[in-house]
């Protein structure tokens, strides 16, 4: 059985090719990181009854998804995996806030229904934007941007190592899980005690990997810091792009 995390991991692993050949990852990261932050900030700041503004903002991820030819089915499945909590919270609004808000023909919509819809659309738009960002920007480029904006070296190194080794260890964990299910019937062997030992031995393997990696890094001249040149310089065109993108967001926010 696939866990939620494994599904998300596999989507990410298979999806990157579609867009990364389409765009220049480093430029996309330089423009994308500030734009994504601004976008999410604007989407989040939309007042709770303002459907038009959130719908207007949804144009951006929709446009990008179409342009980059991202599979809608995959996008939809990812949204579904991620949103049960949000759906519960949104579903509570119509029950709790029953004040009539607008009447269209014979149907009256309560304020709770409107604010519930806004929550759902907001989350779809914000999550959609992040998913599309992850399709366009390679992780290394993202880390280079973080170094450029002076995020501490320790943290960026940590992100790079974590990302790199997650593929290796996830494969190992999957192999262990498969071995366990092949040796047992039904739910035998999935108890806490057995699983803790399984995770414990994965941990020991991890520690031994860490040791090998450290020796390999030291052999290649590692002294606690990755390459200092590992940065992206922001060009004038990047700034122009960022400013124009953010102004469009501001404009939409003012108009709607």
């Amino acid at each position, binding site marked *: 059985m696939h866990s939620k995390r494994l599904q998300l991991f596999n989507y990410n692993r298979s999806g990157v090719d579609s867009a990364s050949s389409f765009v220049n990852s480093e430029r996309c990261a330089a423009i994308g990181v500030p734009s994504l932050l601004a976008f999410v900030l604007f989407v989040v700041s939309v007042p*709770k009854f303002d459907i038009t503004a959130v719908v207007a903002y*949804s144009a951006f991820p*929709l446009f990008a998804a179409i*342009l980059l030819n991202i599979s809608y089915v995959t996008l939809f499945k990812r949204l579904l995996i991620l949103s049960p909590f949000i759906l519960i919270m949104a579903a509570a609004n119509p029950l709790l806030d029953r004040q009539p808000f*607008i009447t269209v023909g014979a149907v009256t919509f309560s304020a709770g229904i409107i604010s519930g819809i806004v929550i759902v659309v907001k989350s779809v738009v914000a999550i959609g934007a992040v998913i599309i960002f992850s399709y366009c920007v390679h992780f290394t480029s993202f880390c280079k941007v973080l170094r450029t904006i002076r995020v501490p070296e320790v943290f960026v190194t940590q992100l790079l190592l974590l990302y790199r080794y997650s593929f290796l260890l996830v494969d190992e*964990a999957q192999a262990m899980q498969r071995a366990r299910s092949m040796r047992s019937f039904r739910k035998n062997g999935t*108890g806490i005690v057995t699983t803790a030992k399984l995770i414990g031995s994965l*941990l020991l393997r991890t*520690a031994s990997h860490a040791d090998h990696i450290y020796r390999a890094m030291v052999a290649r001249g590692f*002294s606690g810091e990755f390459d200092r040149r590992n940065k992206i310089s922001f060009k004038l065109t990047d700034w122009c792009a960022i400013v124009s993108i953010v102004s469009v967001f501001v404009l939409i926010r003012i108009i709607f």
Partner: protein
Amino acid sequence: MHMADALLSPVVGGAFWVVSGALIGYSAKKIAQENDSSRTPLMGVLGAFIFAAQMINFAIPGTGSSGHIGGGLLLSILLGPYRAFITLASVLVIQCLFFADGGIMALGCNIFNLAFFPAFIVYPFLYKRIAGQAVSSVRLGVASILSAEIGLLFGASMVIAETVFSGITELPFKTFVLFMLPIHAAIGIVEGLITYGVVSFVASTEPLMLQGASKVKLNKVVVITFAVAAIITGGFISHFASSHPDGLEWSMANVTGTEEFVSSVSGKVHALSSAIQEKIAFLPDYSFKSPNNAAVESEQTALAGTTISGIVGCLIALLLVSGIGFVVRGKVRRVREGA
């Protein structure tokens, strides 16, 4: 439990971004001072280990459902507060950006809820004191279960506080508490049990692994200051800001020094857009009936910037944007195939 963007106001999200950012900076500085590069790859790989371990499911006793380890307490036990905090924060950043699990605006909240408490509060103040240096399995068990429980309850309470301060959901405080805390109390026991299982396995096979973390000295004054600062910023600022209808306008007004700036600009743009709208609108006379109650009506006319024609207009714009997307995509494909 990951917070989502859609339930958060920009002020609360921003406040926790600042606090979590400062904590990352502080921890990074402390780690740089330790000058022990041999633990750098260990942190990276242990972060990846948490990812991997979360994919191994186990059956939760008595429920028939399955769960996975959270890993906050386990990392703190293995790495000590500063390194565990950085590692947990990095796991959350990757979950947020590359799996879209937990929003970007909510990232600061998530780091605070899920990394700060296990690394800086529960591990040094509770786990270390109960478990001590002994490998006695009773003390280890009590320490693990209690610490995991308290850590998760702290985290869940912060989720409640952040959501209530944001005021996006209508769920009343009491219902929310009754909904969140019992679930997290149950999850906490399971998390404690599995952490205990892993730690006692490691203690019996590779006891040296557990000793590195306990040597790290924590600056408790700084940690408590951070905790208090976070709660004050999150609570007070959002309370103050919530009297303004819109957090962004409020902050824009702060930047420009005047509230009229926003309203005058927005007024002009509104006038212009309504003039354009009148000319091109295909549903000019379409309006909706408001409820008969006059007081409610006036309040809601003010609230409702939404009109049916606005929404329909937006949907048409979306269709147009999609159309342009398809055209551009087709063009790019043709150019590529030609090349």
